[in-house]
C-alpha cells in the first residue's frame, strides 16, 4: 500500500480530477492518493467523483489558498 502524492496546484482545465482519475487507475487497492489543488471546483468534484467511483474520500481540507484531499483506492 503506497502513498501517492499529486501536486495539482495551478491546474484548471483539464483540471485536477483528470490527474486523480489517472492516478487511481494506476494505483492498487489500499493505496492512498494525496492531492493538493487550487481549483475551487475540486471540493465538489472530488466528493461527486468518489461517490461515482466508490473510492473513499478520507479527508478533505478546504483551505483559503489550497485544498487538500486524501483518497483511498478501493
Amino acid at each position, binding site marked *: 500500500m503506497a502513498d501517492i502524492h499529486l501536486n495539482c496546484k495551478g491546474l484548471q482545465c483539464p483540471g485536477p*480530477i483528470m490527474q486523480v*482519475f489517472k492516478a487511481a487507475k494506476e494505483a492498487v487497492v489500499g493505496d492512498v492518493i494525496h492531492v493538493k489543488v*487550487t481549483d475551487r471546483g475540486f471540493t465538489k468534484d472530488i466528493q461527486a467523483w468518489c461517490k461515482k467511483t466508490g473510492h473513499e474520500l478520507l479527508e478533505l481540507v478546504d483551505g483559503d489558498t489550497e485544498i487538500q484531499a486524501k483518497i483511498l483506492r478501493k
Partner: protein
Amino acid sequence: MGRKVLVIGAVAAGTKTAAKMKRENPKAEVVVVTKDEYISYAGCGLPYYIGGVIEEKKELVVKTPEDFKLLTGIDVFTKHEAVGVDKALKRVDVKDLSTGEMKHYTYDDLVIATGASPFVPPIEGRDLKGVFPVRTVNDAQAIRELVDQGAVKKAVVIGGGFIGLEVAENLHEKGIEVAIVELVPHILPPFDEEMALYAQNYMVDQGVRIYTSEKVLSLTGEADNVRKVITDQREIEADLVIMSVGVRPNNQLAKEIGLALGPTGAIRVNEYMETSEKNIYAVGDCAENVNLITGQPAWYPMGSTANKMGRIAGINLAKGEKDSLKGVLGTTIVKLFKLNAGKTGLSERDAVKAGFEVETALVPANDRAHYYPGYREIITKLIVDKASHKILGAQVVGEGVVDKPIDIIATAITFGAKVEDLEKLDLAYAPPFSMAMSSTILAANVLSNKLTGRVKGIGPIEMRNRAKELQIIDVRDEGSFMIGTIPGAVNIPSGELYMRAEELDKNKETVLVCKIGKNAYLAYLKLKELGFEQLRILEGGMNAYPFERE
C-alpha cells in the same frame, strides 16, 4: 440674510443636500426635519447589525443631530414629521411626534427627501409578533434582540432581493434555520436568470432553503406570535418572518403638494433635482432617476445614487453655477456568504425589453493569476448592442473580486464604450491582482468572437430547454464527464476528436461542452475544419451551467 432651505428627511440624501448647500452658501439658513429618531444612518448596514457583524447600534449611525449641527451649523429636528405644505405661503406644517405639538417652518426652497418604505403585502397575519420589515434601525434592533435572546429557531425571509438575502445570510450565520420565499422564478430579480440561479445554487449549498415561483398567502400564529408561513405550495414553520418584498417611494407628501410623479411612482425630477414645482427639489429614494442607457425614467433607491443627488441639489440650491446628474446605470453589488454578485447597466432581459437587439457572452475566468494562491473564479456576463457594439450591461458573480470588473464596466458604459474599446483597456496587472488578460477583457474577447462570427454559442437556458433535440459532445476528460454533464451528452475528450469525428452526425445541430468554454471553442474550430456547420459551444461551460446534471 441668506436663503432659507428646509429639508424633509435626514438619512443619506437629505443630510447630504443640507450639508452641501450650507458649504456652498454659509449664509443660508438650513433646517432639516425628520420623523425618524435617527439621522444619517447606514440603512444598508442593517442586515449586518442583525447578525452581529456590526456590533453596536452606534456604529450604524453616521452622525447624531448634535454632531451634525456642530459640524455643519445645520439644525436637525428628529421625530418631527412634515404633515403638510402650503406652497403659497411657502410653509411646512410639522408635527413634533414627542409632544404632539404642531409647528410651522417657512422656506425659500424646499427639499423632499422622504425616502422609501418597505412594501408590506396586505396578507393576513402581517401584524403578528415576530414579523418585521428591515428598513430602520429600530426594525433591526428588534430583530437582533429576538435573535440574541435565542427566541428564533426558524426564520422565513419573504423576498429574495438584496436585503432579504443579506438578512438570510446573517440569520443563518447565527445558527437559525432559514428559508427564503420568492414570488418570481429566481432570487436576485434584477439579474438574468442564469446568473441569479448560480447565486441561488450557492445559497442552497450554504444551507439556506429557497422556494421560488411561490406566493405567500398568509401568516398564522399562536398567542399573537407568528408560527407559520402559508404559501400556495406549502406551510413553513417560522418564529421570525422578514418582509423584504421590496420598497416603494414615500410619495405621500409629494402627492399632497401636487408634485408630478414619474411612471415609477417616485417624484419626477429633472437633471437639476428640481420637481414640477418651482422652489421644490426632491432627492434620494423618494425621487425618480433616469437610466443613462435608455434615457427612460427608472427608480434606483440606492445609497450611492441618493448621495449624488444630494450633492447636485445642494449645489443648485446655492444658486451659483448649476450642476446636473444626467442619469445612472443602476449599478449594484451584494455579498452572499463568500459569493459576490454585481450588476451594472441593463440585464439581457431589460435590454431586449428596451428594444435592443443584443449579443451576450458568458465567461468564467479568474480574478487573479491561476497560479497565485487564493485566486477565485468569477463569471462575467456581458451584454452589448448588436448594431453599435456599445456595452449595455454586465453581471459578475463569484467568490472572487467582483467589484473591480463591475466598476470597470460601469465606467466603460458611462463613457459610451464599445466592446472593442473594452478589449483594449490597459488594466493593472500583476499575478496577485488580475490575470494577464483580465476577466473583463476576456469576456469582451469572447463577445467580439461572437459578433464577428468566429464562434457561435448557446446559453445555459437554451441548452437546458433544447437538450433533447441537440447532439451534445462533452470534450472534457473522462473523470470530469463522469462527475456530471448535460443530460444526453456523450463524452469525446478533445484529444480524440479527430479520430472519433465519424461517430458524429454532421447534419445535426451540435453543441460542444467543456469546463469553461475554451476547450469547446478549440474543439469547435477542429470540427469546423472537418466540415461541421451546425456547431455551437455551451457558453460558460459546465462551471456556469446552473441546471441539473447527469
